[in-house]
């Protein structure tokens, strides 16, 4: 068992020298979570906007379900994706289990509801302001939804950053469907769990520091955007 000081020193050394193993894990993490975020935005933003501009029977229920899905535990999503992708599962023939693709699918399922639900909240406030003016000009629902996404851009970037933060920090789903295979599906969170249990605290701490920095960077970016938006009176 290393003592904390030694572990910390090793962690800084790994980061400073750009250790190959460390870099590989960080890059895969970012790739997986960024892909999941992109997919989630492609699904979640139109869905959120649609739920705002298009009233339909049962919309309240859909919104409630969506909001509830924001709190889904990652392990449960991991389990569901595992069941779907395992050899005996309905999509087992795709052979995706224990691949980065499976991890992207799981993280997308995890954060798409978050992006959709938060986007809906952001856009709803905007729509209550624009609704009458849009109807006065005869703006179609499709165009209205697109305009909301454009005009709500600053708020929506914050939403996306929140989704990214959740994806990159989550361990339950990726460890079940990815399996934490070295050089293949090992990401920051699963590597931290493994290295810690092995007692390699230097590596664990190095990854932890990077993960924290990413979370911090994401939040700073969100804050910076908010101030830009406020300066232009677009918030």
């Amino acid at each position, binding site marked *: 068992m290393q003592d904390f000081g030694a572990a910390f020193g090793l962690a800084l050394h790994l980061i400073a020298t750009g250790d190959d193993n460390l870099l590989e894990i960080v890059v895969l993490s970012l790739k997986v979570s960024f892909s999941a975020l992109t997919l989630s935005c492609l699904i979640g933003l139109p869905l959120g906007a649609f739920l705002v501009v298009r009233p339909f029977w049962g919309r309240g229920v859909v919104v409630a379900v969506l909001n509830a899905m924001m709190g889904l535990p990652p392990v449960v999503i991991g389990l569901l994706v595992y069941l779907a992708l395992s050899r005996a599962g309905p999509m087992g023939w795709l052979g995706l289990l224990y691949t980065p693709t499976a991890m992207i699918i799981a993280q997308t399922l995890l954060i798409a509801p978050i992006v959709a639900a938060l986007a809906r909240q952001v856009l709803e406030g905007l729509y209550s302001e624009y609704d*009458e003016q849009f109807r*006065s000009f*005869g703006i179609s629902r499709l*165009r209205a939804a697109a305009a909301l996404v454009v005009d709500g851009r600053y708020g929506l970037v914050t939403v996306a950053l929140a989704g990214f933060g959740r994806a990159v920090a989550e361990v339950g789903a990726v460890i079940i469907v990815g399996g934490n295979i070295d050089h293949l599906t090992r990401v920051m969170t699963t590597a931290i769990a493994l290295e810690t249990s092995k007692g390699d605290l230097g590596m664990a701490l190095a990854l932890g520091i990077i993960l924290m920095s990413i979370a911090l960077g994401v939040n700073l970016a969100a804050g910076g955007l908010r101030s830009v938006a406020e300066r232009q*009176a677009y918030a």
Partner: protein
Amino acid sequence: MPERLRPLSPPAVPHAAQPKAKQAAADRPEPSPRDRARPGALRVEGLVLEAQGQRLVDIEHLALPAGGVTMVMGLNGAGKSLFLRLIHGLITPSHGWISWGEVPCGPATSATQALVFQKPVLLRRSAAANVDFVLRARGLDRATRRDRTAEMLARVGLEGRARQPARLLSGGEQQRLALARALAIRPQVLLLDEATASLDPASVLAIERIVTDTARAGTKVIFITHDIGQARRLADDVAFLHRGRLAEHRPADRFFVGPQSESALAYLEGRILL
């Protein structure tokens, strides 16, 4: 889109005898028979809007000439803004009939109209992009949009502000932008809800000139104002609302000489009539 209006057929007799109406029918500035089919000729019968058990608007009969400037006046809360949104088709009345020309109020009529709201609603984009947005929604090509946008901004004196975020414009500039955007679609009917309320005197006169020109070019203008001087300058006829009801509707010259309703008289004299 809001639900369409009931009843689905107009009352059989257009201007049925209205024994309760104090005002003589001959005195009303109603459209001539030839005018009645034009898109600017508003006709309202038995229009009622209720909310939470209150009658917010209750207008038995009103017919506006197809052209010219109709000024709508009345105290705060008289129902002027609601009236404008009703005839534009933004809200559905509890009862009643509204038509423009021969067409019942609906998407077809509101598409040819523009409403400038009491509080300007501007997109979170540049001033020019605000105008461009409504033009693109109408399917105009890029070159036409660019020219029309520049023309309209210049018309309201905002040519130097095209690239500025619309929400950073001053209150008066925002109102002028909202007017430019409304004019850009070349509406047959222009509905203005206190469109000059926060403008400086020079801008008020500039906007009034635009309104007059627009009306002269054939657009029907319905303009809510609290500015009696402005109403005198612009009005062809005046509709005065009091507690949701039409107190009177008369040609401007006669209205300002001596309104017949107690509420309009009190308003012009600056008394509060409750």
